[in-house]
């Protein structure tokens, strides 16, 4: 995958959208693109790793629950925070078990916000805006 990057002052913000449900992933990607950003769809948390080795996104919208025996969104989050160059990538968790995630631990892992599915579209866009700007 080749990602064209323009100068920092003009380039669109890059947002990784990780969700194993195609419909949800497609919806989030459309919403983010409509908001003027570049959305990179990723089906599985593990698939994000090779992408992250090539580019540093401005935000990761992260689902937690993945198919059985696949790396979960939580696993990916811990991997991100263990690597110096990935530590500061903002993460927005959007998950069906969002409200079960310990908020203090999430804050400690520099998660910008944890949203629970079904998520309200204006709330999702507001949280995205808080991180990457309008």
């Amino acid at each position, binding site marked *: 995958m080749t990602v064209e990057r323009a100068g920092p002052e003009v380039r669109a913000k890059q947002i990784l959208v990780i969700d194993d449900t195609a419909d949800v992933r497609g919806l989030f990607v459309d919403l983010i693109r409509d908001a003027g950003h570049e959305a990179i769809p990723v089906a599985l948390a593990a698939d994000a790793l090779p992408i992250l080795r090539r580019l540093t996104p401005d935000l990761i919208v992260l689902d*937690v*629950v*993945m198919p*059985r*025996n*696949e*790396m*979960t969104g*939580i*696993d990916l989050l*811990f*991997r991100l*925070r*263990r690597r110096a160059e990935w530590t500061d990538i903002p993460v927005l968790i959007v998950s*069906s*078990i969002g409200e*079960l*995630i*310990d908020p*203090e*631990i*999430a804050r*400690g*892992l520099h998660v910008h916000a944890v949203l629970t599915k079904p998520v309200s579209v204006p709330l999702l866009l507001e949280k995205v805006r808080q991180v990457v700007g309008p």
Partner: protein
Amino acid sequence: VPGHDADWAPLLSRSAAMRGVRARVERVADTDVTVLIGGESGVGKEVVARAIHLASSRRHRPFIKVNCAALPGELLESELFGHEKGAFTGAYRRKPGTFELADGGTLLLDEIAELPLALQAKLLHVLQDLEFARVGGSETTTVDVRILAATNRALDQAVRAGVFREDLYYRLKVVTLTVPPLRERREEIPVLARLFVERYNGQYSRTVTLSEGELRRLTAHAWPGNVRELENLMKRMVVLGDTALLDEELPPGAPARPRGEGCPVHPAPTRLREIVRRAALEAERAAILDVLERVQWNRAEAARLLRISYKALLAKIDQCGLARKRPRVTPPTGPGRS
């Protein structure tokens, strides 16, 4: 759900607290997310773990529980991760560990706070990379196991005391499910008591019944040993064949005391033998609690000071319904980095 209703008693109630627990069980069941199940001794943490397993797509595969406090470190390592032939004296053949035996299923690590530090590092590695090496081996094995952990101790205190890795604590605590003590859901007590009486009546061919007055007394009791204590009392009562046991165990008017502040106070019993027995129990309990508090609940150290075996101490702690006082809540300082 298989088995007798009483097997699932801790989950069956209609109290708001347990409805919340059940809802969480359903939400997390069909995910592979690691869940930390907290709650005092006897509240039914294993039942909750089994319910998560049975509601998941892993239900046709094994559910294995390992008590991290039951074995010394080196045996526990071999129990969990298996060993290669010749890994240590007596390792005559390769033996798979519970991580391999639970393949495709669920592994419950009970009393996770007691996991030795060296094994905490190995567990963290499994959680991060889903692979491990057997004791004495260098080859890594990948596993397809959902890991659940249970504790009746406040892990944050264990972290502060330096006996639990902070990074593992963070890893386990992301999704926590806390089972409330029975005294915080008293409305369940009559339902549970009847369920246990019915079960043991069937098992021991008895016809013991509880009166409304007896149910009220059961409901007023503090139950420091929670559902397990209630079940044990109902079992003994049924085995003895009458409810007179309740007069000894639950004297009328005994104040309901919170856990950790002393055994239930009984009115002056009439039999000398009974007076001596209770005094001995109270003295034993006070001595154990004193030592535990002095060593910040390091149970291995407490067992050494009390000159009893570690296992015997665990049994006494359970028997006396001892638990650490509720910890002060302090926010985490940040995630562990490695």
